[in-house]
């Protein structure tokens, strides 16, 4: 076997007392796509940052082409042939697509060779089949398109080792297919890819081999052909899970969330549907289909939404989160950092939606707040010992559980609206969150979720509504829910005539 292109040996990194990585080794061959899997906190991001020179390892070495290197920082990593698409977007919103693609490059794009740089940027976009104006400022693009611009930036760097950290989280299925096509052609050119993902399906679709990390340690590296989904999950968790989705046991309740002729300028036209109590209704659609906007509008967060919405016979005025909340509609955002969590303790985050409940003779009682928060923490499976910690220091899964705990405290079951309920959440916590969602159903909540993970839609939903470019395509119930029908609806909807035939 030829010498590996990249060889990391016994990398160790500590942050104070925390071992982020313990003696992790990794060999990457030319033309190999290597998946790195692991739960949140397993050490994936630390590994990436060591390879890009953002951190220096405490011990261990990195060699490229069998020559040992000390990577000093991102620019140095670029010169060594490494390039990264990070999990967080790193685009300058007010610069054009072209400028963003060349941002941070050492090829000095200021005045000369502008035409040449234009041509190469256009070629990169072309590879991704992305039809964009190079002079368009990035803030006008959708999230998925921005992610693709980052990938285009990576393609222009002529890197030998490409690192992609959760590149598909914001991409639609069609865009993911294009990305995979590009990765395959890069592999054919002999370039290597390190591909970090939570989506196990992608491991089997695009990767040659997979390395599993757990608690900062290397657990296993195997060829994808030699493993199954179950062994992979078992490696990641350290235990096998029988079934991640709880059984669908529909509880019968009356009424629900009724949406009539919902219109959101630029996103959705005249959408009508119903999310009954005791059931999980899923809005399935790709990015740009309008699902996210519908969820936000029902939560009162879209100011120019119009239509008739009622919940349990009470009308819900649109455009005010306060009114939606009063009507019993609660929202769990997918963007926990931006509009989910407060930079306060876990305790306060848990009781935030209604602190006024915890009063004693007119004043807030911290004793009652703590007791209430402990109850909620127990309910959703958050360690009670961490009630005093800043919520931002929890893992993604625990953060999401805190948000679920926050909406659990209501005296009467309401409507729960969730955008991508398990984005950035590891496999173990996902199973717990799915269990919580079923608990909500039993209590008589009406659940409405958007999800771009079709497996999740099929695994969880009792009703599925498919959207394509702001139009409702169809509605499926119970046994009719079928992944291929949904996929066809949200990517290539049939016209009503075709459907009839």
């Amino acid at each position: 076997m030829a010498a590996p292109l990249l060889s990391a040996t016994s990398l160790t990194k500590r942050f104070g007392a925390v071992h982020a990585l313990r003696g992790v080794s990794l060999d990457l061959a030319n033309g190999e796509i290597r998946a790195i899997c692991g739960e949140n906190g397993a050490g994936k991001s630390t590994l990436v940052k060591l390879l890009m020179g953002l951190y220096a390892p405490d011990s261990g070495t990195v060699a490229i082409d069998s020559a040992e290197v000390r990577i000093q920082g991102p620019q140095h990593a670029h010169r060594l042939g490494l390039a990264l698409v990070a999990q967080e977007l790193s685009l300058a919103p007010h610069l054009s697509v072209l400028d963003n693609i060349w941002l941070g490059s050492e090829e000095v794009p200021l005045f000369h060779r502008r035409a040449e740089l234009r041509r190469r940027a256009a070629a990169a976009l072309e590879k991704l089949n992305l039809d964009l104006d190079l002079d368009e400022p990035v803030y006008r693009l959708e999230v998925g398109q921005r992610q693709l611009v980052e990938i285009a930036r990576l393609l222009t760097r002529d890197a030998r080792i490409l690192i992609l950290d959760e590149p598909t989280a914001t991409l639609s299925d069609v865009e993911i297919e294009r990305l995979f096509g590009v990765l395959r052609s890069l592999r054919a050119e002999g370039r290597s890819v390190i591909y970090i993902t939570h989506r196990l399906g992608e491991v089997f679709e695009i990767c040659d081999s997979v390395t599993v990390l757990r608690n900062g340690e290397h657990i296993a590296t195997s060829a994808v052909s030699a493993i199954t989904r179950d062994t992979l999950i078992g490696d990641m968790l350290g235990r096998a899970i029988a079934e991640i989705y709880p059984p669908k046991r529909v509880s019968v309740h009356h009424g629900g969330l009724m949406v009539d002729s919902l219109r959101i300028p630029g996103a959705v036209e005249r959408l009508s549907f119903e999310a009954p109590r005791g059931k999980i209704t899923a809005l399935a659609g790709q990015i740009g289909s309008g699902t996210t906007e519908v969820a936000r509008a029902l939560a009162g967060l879209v100011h120019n939404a119009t239509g008739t919405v009622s919940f349990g016979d009470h009308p819900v005025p649109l455009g005010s989160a306060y009114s939606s909340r009063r009507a019993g509609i609660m929202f769990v955002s997918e963007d926990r950092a931006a509009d989910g969590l407060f930079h306060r303790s876990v305790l306060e985050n848990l009781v935030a939606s209604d602190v006024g409940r915890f009063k004693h003779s007119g004043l807030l009682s911290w004793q009652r707040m703590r007791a209430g928060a402990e109850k909620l923490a127990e309910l959703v499976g958050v360690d009670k010992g961490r009630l005093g910690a800043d919520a931002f220091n929890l893992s993604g899964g625990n953060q999401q559980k805190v948000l679920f705990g926050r909406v659990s405290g209501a005296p009467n079951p309401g409507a729960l609206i969730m955008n991508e309920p398990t984005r950035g959440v590891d496999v173990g916590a996902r199973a717990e969150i799915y269990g919580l969602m079923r608990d909500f159903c039993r209590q008589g909540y009406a659940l409405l979720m958007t999800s771009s993970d079709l497996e999740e839609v099929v695994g969880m939903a009792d009703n599925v509504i498919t959207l394509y470019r702001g139009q409702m395509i169809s509605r499926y119930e119970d046994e009719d829910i079928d992944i291929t029908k949904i996929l066809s609806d949200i990517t290539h909807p049939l016209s009503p005539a075709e459907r009839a035939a």
Partner: protein
Amino acid sequence: MSRKALASNQLTAVAWLRLLFVATLAVAVVLTPGFLSAPSLLTLLTTVSFVGCVAVGMTFITLSGNIMSFSLGATVAACAVTFVAVLNAAGPLAGIVAALTVGGLLSGAQGAIIGGLRANPIIVSIAALALIQGGLNFITGNATTNANPGAGHEVLRGKLLGLPIEFVVLLILVVLGQSILTWTTFGRHIYFVGSGVRAAEAVGLRVGWIVTGAYFWAGLFSAVAGVLLGLRYNQANMEYGFGYDYDAIAAILVGGTAIQGGQGSVFRTFAGVIFIATIQVLLLLHGFRQEWQYLIAGIIVLLVVMLQTTGRRHV
């Protein structure tokens, strides 16, 4: 060691630095002749009280995520003038009520614009500063309003329990302010809005009202400073309260309240007020002139902000 132990290690570094600061100051205080004499201390306590009231109010604004207001000093002047004018016409109680009303409205209106329209708090407060000063100039003609002798306000002067009455009022405001923040729903909401305004909106908090409320209280507390000034000097003019906004934000930052909002307390602000005032008096007693006091205050604020930012980067 756990992650918690790690955090407390970092905390100790900052805590040590604080302790060092305070210890140096204590030594300087003891070694400075004249500092620990009763008249000197009483003067110190009286002077900090005016800025202290404004700082307590400003803390509400900072905690709500709106950085600071540049108009609270002018609000103090407006309230002082209002107090003296109404005092002359209708007695001290009416004067106090009028001053509080003016302060609450002036600041609350800015809060409504900032919270309701999501306008930039700095710009709104600068505009308000110009409006208040212009309005005052128009009304008073830049003249000093004097309190009539025997208007009934002399009874509010002097000492209480051996402390200047201004300082007693400040202590009451500190306790009141922190109680509002800790033990009322509104107070918690200020922290929530300050530590994540979009999250606050998403859980259905009425952000506009909460921000208006924070500014309203800031105005009330500043009005108290105006009343105290009017009482103390028996007069009021539009120069009163000049620079108080700056001293207040300096005290807030030195106390350790986060400039981006959501973290901090009125008690911290109080500690900051005392700290800065002590340094200023020390400088004065050592014969440094006023410009030195400004310079030193500026340097302290810069140091604190740099310390806060580097601390955050390491975490």
